[in-house]
């Protein structure tokens, strides 16, 4: 057995095409997932009973299910509902947003709940409105507390995007898979994919740790 490095180098442009899809899915998943997650967290903390219950049910349900099952749900159901095919990319994106939002919302919620009641009292006692207390006192602290966990979740999302393989999206893993299968070079291709994911996630985790130490309150 021999590792064919030039083979990998020759196919870097094709692999990069796949990586671009992976990165786009990750980025859109993070932005939309955090947006939906924030809405869910606000709903859950609103104190308005139907909203609280609905948000809690959503979060609990999505955290009980395998991401793969959600991808299949969306992949089969969304075209039925819309009346036209939407393709693997959008199916996967919708699944990631729905699924990750449940996790993001829990991170945001516990970040806000982690701020002691006394801080809210202090803000209110100084004459700030409830919204002002949230904005100037609770949220800045909550954001700092939750930032590391939020970033770790983003790294997890980046890794999870590899699951789009099952609906045939041409992401980084799929690109490597196609090239490797065609030329019987799966060892090089899977090895390279693992190496790239490892390096990216390892460095990102190191950066998160450093950030956490710097911004710890």
């Amino acid at each position, binding site marked *: 057995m021999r590792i064919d490095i030039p083979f990998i180098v020759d196919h870097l442009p094709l692999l990069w095409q796949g990586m671009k899809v992976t990165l786009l899915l990750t980025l859109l998943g993070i932005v939309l997932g955090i947006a939906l997650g924030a809405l869910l967290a606000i709903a859950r903390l609103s104190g308005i009973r139907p909203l609280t219950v609905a948000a809690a049910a959503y979060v609990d349900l999505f955290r009980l299910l395998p991401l793969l099952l959600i991808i299949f749900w969306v992949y089969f159901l969304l075209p039925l509902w819309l009346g036209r095919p939407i393709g693997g990319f959008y199916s996967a994106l919708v699944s990631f947003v729905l699924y990750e939002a449940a996790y993001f919302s829990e991170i945001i919620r516990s970040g806000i709940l982690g701020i*002691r009641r006394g801080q809210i009292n202090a803000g209110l*006692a*100084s004459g700030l409105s409830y919204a*002002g207390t949230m904005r100037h006192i609770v949220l800045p*602290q909550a954001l700092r507390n939750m930032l590391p966990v939020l970033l770790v979740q983003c790294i997890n999302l980046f890794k999870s995007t590899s699951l789009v393989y099952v609906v045939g999206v041409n992401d980084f893993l799929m690109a490597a898979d196609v090239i490797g299968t065609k030329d019987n070079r799966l060892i090089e291709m899977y090895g390279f994919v693992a190496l790239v994911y490892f390096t990216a996630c390892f460095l990102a985790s190191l950066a998160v740790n450093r950030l956490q130490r710097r911004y710890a309150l």
Partner: protein
Amino acid sequence: MIAIDKVSKWYGRTQVLADCTTAVARGEVVVVCGPSGSGKSTLIKCVNGLEPFQQGSITVDGVSVGDKATKLAKLRARIGMVFQSFELYPHMTATENITLAPIKVLGRDRVEAVARAHALLERVGMREFADRYPANLSGGQQQRVAIARALAMEPIAMLFDEPTSALDPETITEVLDAMMALAQDGMTMIVVTHEMGFASKVAHRVVFMDGGRIVEDAPKAEFFDRPHSPRAQAFLSKILRH
């Protein structure tokens, strides 16, 4: 200036305040004391509306606290409060802690607010720590910043909720000194505390609470020399023995 009239409060079914009535005149310093769980912290949190109450009324400078139409934020901006656990905002420096409300609530100019914050820090002996974060200050220093923060809103009255209970013995004095200076300047103050030394030096009146009731409400001298209720006598003998 502050009138508390027949205030009662329940948490679910348990009553935590029962028929509390007292008043504080302009420039008066009133110390509220009593065993833990007697409702004294809850009572002063009712004064600025941090805790709601179900019966009775509280008016501050003619404004009714319990009234739904009252803009609580506006009222709170005129009453300073100092907390047991300081509650400095950990993501802001001492100066930023002090200037936040003046800038955001009163719409003060930033430069002016900072200058005033520095003057207040000077007053509590903390000028050189203006740019420190709370985590880098001792408990006593944090509490002095918290006092400066409350003063920055030019309050008509100050509420102190056990301001020295969370402090090391050696830093209690620096906070009490700042409070005494404030009292001598004529500030209207309600102070929940166990520091009977402070009470005997600067209080005009002492309110003693037990089980959610105001058991004793008397001028300082009378309270210390001739407490009426057996509970207050027991409390005093326990506290003063230390």
